[in-house]
């Protein structure tokens, strides 16, 4: 039940992020939306690592760590590109 | 690999490889380019000579390359392919000489001769194709290789003509492709077989077979310029004269006509084609085209346009021959493959000479050209009279056999078509001859370029029409000699009607 609660929260986060990504145009909002989607998936993965009394499954934990670094990298590049565009527009 | 399996592919490569190298030749290296051209043409002639002798004795030459399971690229020599290969090889040699002279000072010659060689390679590939897949492959390559030749001059007219040419041939190409694929889906991979290979199929498949035939005929009919698919041919007249000669006599229209022969004789077989009613359809289409082309030719003032409509008309004799059941008509159709080629190429060479030397492009400007250019006009006259069917020129032999075949098959309406067509031929050719020989020449020719020697024009332009005109006479006079086109066509017919 706890799994479903936390996993379900992940799904809701994913859906919220997706909705925001599709609806809003500004780069920052889209990026935040993507990160929320990512958090939703990570949430789900952490939730299913839980196994009641036993120690949790470490594999999803590691996947989430990897996923976070990937998400950070992508966000950084997108931000840099967005800033570059802003500078160009400001320079005109 | 044995010699037998190498010969067909060598014949193909003898023009393909020079073609590739010609592209790389620097524009100003005339001599290297000329050497490549002529070496390719002569080597091909030699190899074809070997092949004629071998096929006559019953040798089997076949190159086979598996492209994919069930899809073999087959180059094989049977009597019919040898007929077409020989025609294109001999005429390529002559046309190359002519083109070298004709394009002496024009731009982009590396490109021109490169595609020229590719075009002949594709034609030879069509001739040697041993199954429908190989035929389609070379048929499409021919389209690709001729497009640059039609567009060569680069004028808006040329671009437009090339576009129309491409639109027709590409559309035809996809129909042919679908037909070929459908047929292969029905039969599996089968090579061309003398006497056809579809006769063994059950009657339940006759519906699809008719549909496939219509698709194939539509695809082939575009190149063979069967009405109403002929629209590209007069438009592509903007191409340089050697290209027109090649398109009309050797490569494109012939490829279409040859394809129809292949489909009727070596895929369906005359028996099945007749049983399905396909021969009647073909006969009606061919007759319509013959009459329609001749009528349109009457009203053309442009010399090349008149010749173009004449081609539309004359090529369908080949299909007409195929549409009449019986060996004699078959012989007539087959032999016309060669006869139309040598006669029409003569006419186009001469038209090119008039245009190049005197600036004469229209029939109405041709008054007295016979006095100014007697040898060219002599060659032209031989070609034109042959087209009308005057003995002893080659065209007469064709019409004689077609007529006999029609009588034998009780298809008397064909005689009417032949008679009407001959009258029309006379009506559009004789006025030209009259103007050329009997009208006084005008005070000055437009844009006349002075001849540089004893002859009326450059040697490279004069000899090719004289040679081909001589061939027209020889083919007619010595029709019964061994290895004449007629004798060879009889050999084919014997093998097809075994």
């Amino acid at each position, binding site marked *: 039940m706890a799994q479903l609660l936390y996993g379900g929260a992940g799904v809701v986060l994913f859906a919220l992020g997706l909705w925001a990504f599709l609806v809003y145009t500004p780069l920052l909002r889209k990026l935040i939306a993507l990160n929320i989607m990512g958090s939703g998936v990570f949430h*789900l993965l952490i939730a299913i690592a839980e196994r009641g009394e036993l120690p949790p499954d470490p594999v999803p934990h590691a996947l989430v760590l990897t996923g976070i670094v990937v998400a*950070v990298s992508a966000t950084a590049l997108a931000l840099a590109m967005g800033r570059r565009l802003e500078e160009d527009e400001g320079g005109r | 690999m044995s010699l037998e399996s190498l010969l067909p592919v060598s014949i193909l490569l003898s023009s393909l490889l020079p073609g590739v190298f010609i592209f790389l030749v620097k524009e100003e290296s005339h001599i290297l380019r000329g050497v490549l051209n002529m070496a390719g043409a002569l080597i091909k002639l030699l190899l074809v000579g070997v092949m004629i002798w071998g096929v006559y004795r019953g040798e089997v030459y076949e190159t086979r390359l598996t492209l994919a399971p069930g899809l073999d690229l087959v180059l094989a020599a049977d009597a019919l392919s040898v007929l077409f290969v020989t025609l294109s090889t001999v005429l390529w040699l002559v046309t190359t000489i002519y083109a070298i002279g004709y394009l002496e000072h024009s731009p982009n010659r590396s490109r021109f001769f490169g595609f020229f060689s590719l075009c002949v390679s594709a034609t030879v590939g069509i001739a040697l194709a041993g199954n429908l897949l190989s035929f389609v492959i070379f048929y499409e390559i021919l389209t690709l290789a001729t497009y640059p030749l039609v567009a060569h001059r680069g004028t808006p007219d040329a671009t437009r003509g090339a576009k129309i040419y491409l639109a027709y041939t590409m559309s035809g190409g996809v129909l042919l492709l679908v037909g070929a694929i459908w047929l292969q889906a029905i039969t599996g991979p089968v090579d061309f077989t003398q006497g056809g290979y579809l006769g063994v199929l059950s009657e339940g498949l006759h519906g699809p077979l008719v549909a496939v035939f219509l698709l194939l005929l539509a695809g082939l009919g575009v190149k063979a310029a069967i009405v109403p698919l002929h629209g590209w041919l007069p438009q592509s007249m903007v191409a340089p004269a050697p290209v027109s000669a090649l398109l009309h006599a050797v490569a494109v229209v012939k490829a279409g006509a040859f394809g129809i022969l292949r489909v009727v004789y070596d895929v369906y077989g005359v028996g099945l084609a007749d049983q399905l009613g396909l021969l009647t359809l073909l006969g009606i289409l061919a007759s319509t085209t013959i009459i329609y082309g001749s009528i349109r030719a009457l009203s053309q003032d442009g010399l090349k346009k008149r010749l173009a409509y004449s081609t539309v008309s004359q090529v369908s004799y080949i299909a007409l021959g195929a549409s009449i059941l019986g060996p004699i008509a078959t012989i007539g159709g087959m032999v016309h493959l060669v006869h139309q080629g040598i006669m029409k190429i003569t006419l186009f060479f001469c038209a090119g000479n008039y245009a190049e030397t005197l600036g004469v492009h229209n029939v109405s400007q041709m008054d007295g050209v016979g006095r100014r250019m007697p040898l060219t006009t002599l060659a032209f006259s031989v070609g034109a009279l042959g087209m009308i069917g005057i003995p002893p020129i080659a065209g007469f032999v064709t019409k004689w056999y077609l007529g006999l075949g029609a009588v034998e098959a009780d298809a008397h309406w064909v005689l009417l078509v032949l008679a009407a067509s001959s009258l029309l031929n006379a009506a559009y050719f004789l006025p030209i001859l009259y103007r050329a020989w009997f009208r006084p020449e005008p005070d000055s020719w437009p844009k006349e370029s002075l001849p540089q020697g004893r002859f009326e024009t450059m040697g490279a332009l004069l000899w090719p029409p004289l040679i081909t005109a001589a061939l027209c006479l020889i083919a007619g006079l010595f029709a019964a000699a061994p290895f004449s086109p007629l004798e060879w066509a009889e050999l084919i017919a014997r093998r097809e009607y075994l």
Partner: protein
Amino acid sequence: MKSAGGLVIGAFVLLLAIWLLWVVQTAIDIGAGPRLAEQAFAGLPATGVSNPVTAVLLSYRGYDTLLELAVLLAALLGIWSLGAASPGFQAAGAVLQGMVTLVVPLLILAGGYLLWVGGHAPGGAFQAGALLGAAGVVMRLAGDERAGLPPLAAQRWLVVAGVAVFVLVGIATMGLGAGFLAYPIGWSKWLILAIETAATVAIGTTLAAAYVGGRPWSHADVSGQS
């Protein structure tokens, strides 16, 4: 119009969410088993580390981590290719400067601790690298244009260090006949530590350099000359 589109999207996303909730429930019911936990714990002694997450990251699924470090590097390369960095912030005032002198060493120290502890307790290269990166961010905020990093030429070597050590260890183990990234028994703890150390430095440098946001522009660096 726009709001109507938003409404349609909202409805679609809502339906998707409901559907997914049901699917997640179904999936949890199907997969009630132990998943990979038992195998992961069973393999622990052979990995040389006792923290199972570190074992997954550096041993079982080390290849993923290798590529993930490459992703980080790629992001920085992309940022560098976009142009020069913006100039730094103005130098910090006395109070901020005082905090910086306190916080930065602490961050570095904490990073070192996390790196070491990762072998047997939660922690490891990413957490440590993130702290180092944070130290860089703090320094840039306090007016250090380069976020405390060495010149570009040296930065280049630092940012590749993580992937480089990782992949070279992989190739070396392969050369020794054990297969790519298959650490020999007994060596694995030290190899993992070496990889994690290099990764920590690379992650910290990369994050700080990414925060700088472009090639450091005040230096005549090598890349602009050739």
